[in-house]
């Protein structure tokens, strides 16, 4: 009505369009202006004498200022004053520049401005003549007397605001410290619960009498639904109703608070605030990596009554806590999961440098969620301008923005390693035994190298000298050697090149041979040197992992822990007769023990002064290298690795701007947030490949360079053949080969192999010159088998989307009007000025989330405890003490019971931020136990029931309706935790990740249904299940015919009616009455009244009649009982709390 927020600014480069856009911005200014005038807080805007008419002002704002702003201010504005002329204020225009008055009000013909734009003596603007209608506008404007209006935006950002803000901070109730009020003493009140004292004092003040207590049935149902979202079992209800001890109710409260289903209920309440979604939305609806683990984390947290301040710390900085909370049972770092909350918003995969909003919207949504959920403040309003209502300047927004912008959004491994440790140790030991065993066989096999080399060469040369030996040789090995010789005879990089090109072509006794040999030796030496020089000249070390150091890179994952090798590490094959799949050079690997383990390795931000980064890497089974720009983690820029041996991969370093941090990451498939990718990108792999365990990568070096090449590999391993001068005979050369291999294997067996050794062993292995079979010995076979057995037991690492601070934080510029293309001065990272007594700016090395967490999770923060206790109150009583639960700012509602809110907030903090203790206090109050029946007097005096004369009647939430149906039918599966169940859909669209699940959701509670963006769980959405877009502390409770249609006709409801009927039929009920009674107990938690039994009995008979079933057979008729069940599901009492 009066305030229209320029929340989004379109980025259009067209000049013409800018005219429109700026006109809009100015329109905004105009609208804003009227607000400020009315509000009377600010200094009056400046009017010129002739501008009183609003039409003139409007004309100026809409038509004139856009022309001036677009075409003139660049040279005649705040930055530049060409010809000493400014055109951005009326005084300046009237004063004019070096040529005198630019505008003579009322006289266009005498105004320089008109001459200039008509290109008479001056050519303005220099870029090209204005459109005729623009010139006409200027003329009209001058004729009108040049009305001008100085809109107050400039003042908002300066002093006026400071005073206004100071006043708001001083006066608005929510910013005042929480001081414990005195509890009023009500004489006639028997309750000692202070909640009741406050409520009843107000009631008395208003002349209202409390409604009086509810009966036990009603109370039990209300309490159970409110605390757990499930009805009590008939057995439990009975237990409570029969319990005549004075503390029966209190004990029921405690039982329900201790129920594991308590956590499920309150986790779901919390996810409403966190805009919890499990896919990213937009075109492809990418999966949000294991978001369900965050939901399970909440269930545990609420069940364990995790102190709320700790919950905040974990949400804001769970990845940074010095002493994270470890769950021993699951072997996971719980605190790490809290920070997943930042990641739960929607996100697009497109290039976020080209489309800046993709990134800025993500951060905006994080700020919005953080501040609404924890502080009840609408900080996101300050994205484009200082907050108009609350003391939140735009710079506070960008102080927060910097914190979030400089936090990385990454996949994290939750496992503490405990679960893997023992197995990993065993695998290590076994590997070492396998190596020793294997090495001893292979060393023995080296004896064969020389004879085979000679014999096979002889065969190829058709020489006869070694013919007699051949009969003893194995044909398979002869075949093998022949192939190697063929392959390596032409390539100087080949190990056998010296053998094939020289030793076999020449007479080794000849003089020429010696010369040729030393020439070849020199060639290798020279070439090695040249390569070293080339590498040294052109490549700058960014990271060398051969030393085992991380070089400032950041690792995550079970596989990569201890995944360093100085060379020679073997990888045990997990199937077939093969023992090893490879021997690795020095570096860091994820699969030294098993490719079932995971890993991620992330670089520091890349320097922008080089053109390329090259990595020497290997990897497979959907591991990938990704380039992450400005933390846009769904970026397209990634490649699936398919290198089984180490090779160089060159990555161009794009985006030279300092403002876009770029890093690369290597990830096993579970850490690649793009997987599963959309169909057209899933080249060469399928969904089922993703589900199979196993993925790996390794890296040895990272270099920066400008040349469009990668470093060249060394040749030092060839030197072994040239030691000791030229060989005197073929036999000698052959035995040099044998020695080189043997030497490598001995070093390997002693775990002292260097890179040359690894080269040689790799050569043998690749060419099957040694036998890589577990059948070499019974012991080897057994060792390999044991290894494989243990390997198969490794639990799959648990990976989630979370955050990390891997780099020094950086400040970001304030964006004018929220426009990423208009950066202004940098704002030091910090918290909201109004809530922090310190100077702005955090003194942290990281992003600042630690300090941020402490600022929020603080007893002295006036909002944190108030906002949370109000949320708890809202869920217990159906509306908050402050009804605008997400907005405690000046435009939120004021508290109905401010002292009570203070009192509760104070208690909350005093009791260690215990949610359960606070809830216990609320539900034990007499106020909670009031009947829902209002008096006529109450309806007249307080129709909204804001003074809580009676307990408010309200519809159950979507989840509670569905869960209650399942509980009543008997289908409810009370299993906790686990990955989400796809909601039922009539049509599934796998390319949009909209898959269909079972109609009854496998009987699981609604909490476990997958929350997909684009199309959420349909049955739930009908009953106001929120769209996961923004914090939603208070759900709608709409009443729409689709709800009636769903309960009448939806397949789920019909199916559950049948399920319930089937269960009823197998019960040994003797009479209609007994069965109806049991149905009432299951569905409504109470016995039927006598008249109800009569009516329902008549109804049952009527149904039987309609189905043509005789009264005698009624008890066995599925149709009748299904219809009865269906009818009961449709009773309003069934879906209302009262």
């Amino acid at each position, binding site marked *: 009505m009066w305030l229209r927020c320029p929340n989004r600014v379109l980025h259009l480069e067209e000049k013409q369009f800018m005219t429109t856009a700026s006109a809009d911005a100015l329109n905004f200014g105009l609208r804003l202006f009227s607000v400020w005038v009315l509000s009377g807080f600010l200094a009056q805007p400046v009017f010129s004498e002739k501008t009183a008419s609003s039409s003139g002002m409007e004309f100026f704002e809409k038509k004139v200022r856009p022309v001036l702003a677009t075409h003139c201010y660049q040279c005649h504005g705040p930055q530049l004053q060409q010809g000493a002329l400014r055109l951005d204020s009326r005084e300046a225009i009237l004063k004019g520049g070096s040529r005198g008055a630019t505008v003579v009000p009322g006289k266009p013909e005498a105004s320089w401005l008109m001459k200039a734009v008509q290109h008479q003596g001056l050519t303005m603007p220099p870029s090209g003549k204005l459109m005729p209608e623009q010139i006409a506008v200027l003329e009209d404007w001058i004729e009108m007397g040049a009305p001008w209006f100085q809109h107050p935006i400039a003042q908002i950002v300066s002093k006026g605001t400071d005073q206004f803000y100071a006043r708001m901070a001083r006066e608005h109730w929510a910013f005042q410290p929480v001081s414990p009020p005195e509890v009023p003493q009500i004489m006639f009140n028997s309750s000692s619960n202070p909640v009741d004292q406050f409520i009843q004092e107000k009631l008395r003040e208003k002349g209202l009498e409390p409604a009086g207590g509810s009966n036990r049935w009603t109370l039990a149902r209300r309490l159970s639904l409110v605390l757990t979202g499930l009805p009590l079992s008939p057995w439990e209800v009975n237990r409570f109703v029969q319990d005549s001890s004075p503390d029966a109710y209190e004990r029921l409260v405690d039982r329900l608070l201790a129920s594991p289903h308590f956590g499920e209920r309150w986790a779901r309440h919390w996810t409403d605030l966190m805009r919890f979604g499990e896919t990213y*939305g937009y075109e492809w609806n990418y999966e949000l990596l294991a978001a369900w683990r965050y939901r399970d984390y909440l269930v545990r947290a609420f069940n364990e009554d995790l102190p709320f301040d700790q919950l905040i710390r974990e949400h804001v900085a769970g990845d940074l806590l010095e002493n994270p909370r470890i769950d021993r049972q699951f072997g996971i770092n719980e605190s790490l999961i809290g920070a997943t909350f930042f990641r739960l918003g929607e996100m697009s995969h497109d290039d976020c440098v080209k489309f800046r909003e993709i990134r800025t919207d993500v951060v905006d949504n994080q700020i919005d969620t953080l501040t609404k959920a924890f502080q009840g403040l*609408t900080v996101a309003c300050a994205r484009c301008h200082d907050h108009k*209502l609350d003391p939140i300047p735009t710079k506070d927004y960008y102080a927060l923005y910097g914190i979030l912008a400089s936090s990385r959004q990454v996949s994290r491994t939750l496992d503490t390693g405990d679960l893997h440790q023992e197995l990993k140790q065993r695998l290590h030991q076994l590997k070492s035994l396998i190596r020793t065993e294997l090495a001893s066989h292979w060393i023995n096999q080296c004896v064969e190298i020389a004879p085979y080399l000679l014999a096979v060469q002889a065969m190829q040369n058709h020489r006869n000298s070694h013919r007699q030996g051949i009969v003893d040789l194995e044909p398979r090995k002869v075949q093998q050697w022949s192939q190697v010789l063929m392959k390596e005879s032409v390539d100087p990089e080949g190990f056998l090149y010296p053998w094939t090109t020289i030793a076999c072509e020449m007479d080794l006794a000849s003089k020429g041979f010696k010369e040729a040999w030393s020439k070849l030796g020199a060639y290798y030496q020279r070439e090695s040197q040249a390569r070293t020089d080339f590498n040294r000249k052109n490549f700058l070390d960014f990271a060398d992992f051969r030393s085992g150091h991380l070089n400032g890179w950041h690792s995550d994952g079970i596989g990569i822990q201890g995944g360093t090798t100085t060379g020679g590490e073997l990888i045990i094959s997990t199937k077939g007769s093969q023992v090893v799949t490879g021997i690795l050079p020095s570096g860091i690997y994820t699969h030294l023990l098993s490719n079932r383990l995971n890993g991620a390795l992330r670089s520091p931000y890349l320097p922008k002064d080089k053109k390329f980064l090259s990595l020497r890497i290997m990897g497979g089974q959907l591991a990938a290298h990704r380039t992450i720009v400005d933390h846009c983690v769904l970026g397209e820029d990634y490649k699936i690795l398919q290198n089984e041996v180490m090779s160089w991969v060159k990555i161009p370093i794009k985006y030279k701007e300092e403002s876009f941090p770029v890093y690369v990451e290597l990830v096993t498939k579970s850490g690649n947030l793009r997987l599963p990718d959309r169909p057209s990108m899933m080249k060469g792999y399928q969904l089922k490949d993703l589900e199979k365990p196993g993925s790996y990568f390794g890296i040895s070096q990272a270099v920066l360079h400008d040349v469009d090449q990668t470093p060249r590999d060394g040749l030092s391993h060839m030197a072994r053949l040239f030691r000791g001068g030229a060989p005197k005979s073929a036999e000698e050369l052959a035995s040099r080969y044998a020695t080189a291999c043997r030497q490598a294997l001995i070093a390997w067996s002693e775990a002292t192999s260097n890179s040359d050794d690894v080269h040689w062993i790799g050569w043998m292995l690749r060419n099957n010159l040694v036998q890589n079979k577990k059948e070499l010995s019974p012991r080897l076979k057994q060792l390999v088998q044991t290894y494989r057995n243990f390997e198969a037991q490794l639990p799959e690492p648990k990976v989630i989307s979370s955050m990390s601070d891997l780099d020094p934080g950086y400040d970001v510029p304030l964006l004018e009007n929220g426009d990423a293309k208009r950066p202004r001065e940098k704002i030091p990272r910090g918290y909201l000025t109004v809530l922090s007594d310190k100077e702005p700016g955090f003194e942290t090395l990281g992003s600042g989330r630690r300090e941020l967490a402490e600022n929020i999770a603080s007893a002295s923060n006036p909002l944190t405890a108030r906002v949370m206790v109000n949320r708890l109150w809202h869920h217990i009583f159906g509306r908050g003490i402050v009804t605008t639960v997400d907005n405690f700012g000046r435009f939120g509602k004021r508290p109905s019971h401010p002292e009570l809110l203070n009192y509760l907030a104070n208690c909350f903090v005093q009791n260690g931020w215990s949610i359960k203790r606070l809830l216990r206090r609320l539900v034990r109050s007499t106020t909670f136990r009031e*009947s829902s029946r209002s008096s006529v007097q109450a309806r007249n005096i307080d*129709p909204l029931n804001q003074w809580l004369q009676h307990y408010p009647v309200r519809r159950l939430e979507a989840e509670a309706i569905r869960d209650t149906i399942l509980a009543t039918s008997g289908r409810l599966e009370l299993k906790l935790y686990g990955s989400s169940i796809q909601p039922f859909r009539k049509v599934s669209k796998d390319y949009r990740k909209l898959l269909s699940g079972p109609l009854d959701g496998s009987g699981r509670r609604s909490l476990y249904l997958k929350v997909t963006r684009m199309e959420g769980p349909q049955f739930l959405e009908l009953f106001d299940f929120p769209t996961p877009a923004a914090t939603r502390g208070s759900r*709608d409770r709409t009443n*729409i015919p*689709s709800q009636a249609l769903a309960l009448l006709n939806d397949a789920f409801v019909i199916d559950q009616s049948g399920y319930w009927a089937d269960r009823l039929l197998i019960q040994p009920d003797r009479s209609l009455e007994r069965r109806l009674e049991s149905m009432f107990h299951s569905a409504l938690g109470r016995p039927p009244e006598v008249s109800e039994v009569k009516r329902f009995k008549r109804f049952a008979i009527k149904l039987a009649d309609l189905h043509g079933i005789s009264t005698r057979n009624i008890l066995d008729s599925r149709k009748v009982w299904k219809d009865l069940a269906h009818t009961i599901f449709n*009773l309003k*009492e069934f879906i209302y709390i009262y």
Partner: protein
Amino acid sequence: MSIIYEKSRECPGCVGAPLTRREVLKQAANGFGMLALSTLMADEAYAGLVQATKPHFKPQVKNVILCFMPGGVSHMDTFDPKPKLAELNGKLSGDGQRTWLKCPWTFNRYGQAGIPVSELLPHIATCVDDLAIIRSMVSGFPLHPRGNILFHTGRNVGGHPSLGSWITYALGSENKNLPGYVLLHTGDIPPGGLENFSNGFLPATHQALPVRADGDPIDNLLPADDQILQQTKLKMLLAEDRKFSSMAGTDDAVESAIANYEMAYRMQSLVPDVLDLDKESEATKRLYGLDTSNKEKGQYSLQCLRARRLVEEGVRFVEITCPVLFGQNNGTWDQHSYLKRGHEANALVTDQAVAALIKDLKSRGMLEETLIIWGTEFGRTPDTSNGDGRDHLETAFTIFMAGGGIKGGTLYGETDEIGEKSVENITTVHDLHATILQLVGLDHEKLTYRFGGRELSLTDVHGKVISQILA
């Protein structure tokens, strides 16, 4: 606006947090009996039937039909001829990686005004005297989801109410038994998903009711029980629920939930009746192209004819989306390649029925009180990266409007000579929204809703009414 605000104590000019409509009614009823109030609210307020606001202007039209063409229709191949491209065809454009691509179809002039339309749309071409064609549209984003969401909600991110939701919210429904906003689709929801048609922060009553072309058109509308059985149950429910209502304490939400069963019951028979085309003449069906053997065309024609029937029954806002052809899942008109084949197939499916809708409404005298909008999220590039397709272009595209208040035979706005940029009378989606709201009698600056501590509107701070296309 009828929403009543509390006066802020500190600031007489500022209005405070609004009361919900229910609160308003409750407070208004203060001191009177509750009974009348309950009935009133149960019946209307809760079903979203009451108007949130009186029209700000005299409405030109009562109903709106949006024929949305997702994927990005090429403007230079439909309504915005660019002869220059024929000259440039095949030559390198811009960065040297792309080439100019001429329009593969010919244009002819139609109507009294001689408006050029390509042979792609022969049926719509015959209606040009009723159309105001805007050839200078611009959008913010050359990305489908954001483009679609912007076109529908005026924002580039989800969570905001759709145009149809705003209109039904403001004006209420004319028919007690039908929802105010209906989405006719053929199985595929355009990128951006249901957020395109969402009520956002407005009450859920104002979300689009999706109606499928085949199978059960509406979820849960098909009664699970035969009529007598259902009536028996409903009778029982009514009696028991009334008792519960008085037992639990008179709560109007319960009362209106009870009333919803009445409406639901009526919808079960009425809605299929409206959607059922049995009573339509063969000539009408032929006009819409229902006699086709092309499955998608048949579905689209069916939905267009249903749209007419729905507005006849008083549904405020009907949107029709296109079927997906060739298994493309990114929006039907999204021809990055195979432009000719793709656009021809899409035109074949939609052209006749859209034209039929205009003609049919006109012949029934209903066009004067109905607004038809034919639109798309953005245009397509004049050049090509692969020789036979066009890519996304947010800086120029074409839409048209027809119906009450619209000056027929109008061409508005221009693009440059290759169709790459709108250069004259540049029109934003917000301008379009402002104009549509004006036609239904609403001022886009006054139609606001308080959410999350702010007054929010469809056009945000943007938008101006395009008066030149108005009669």
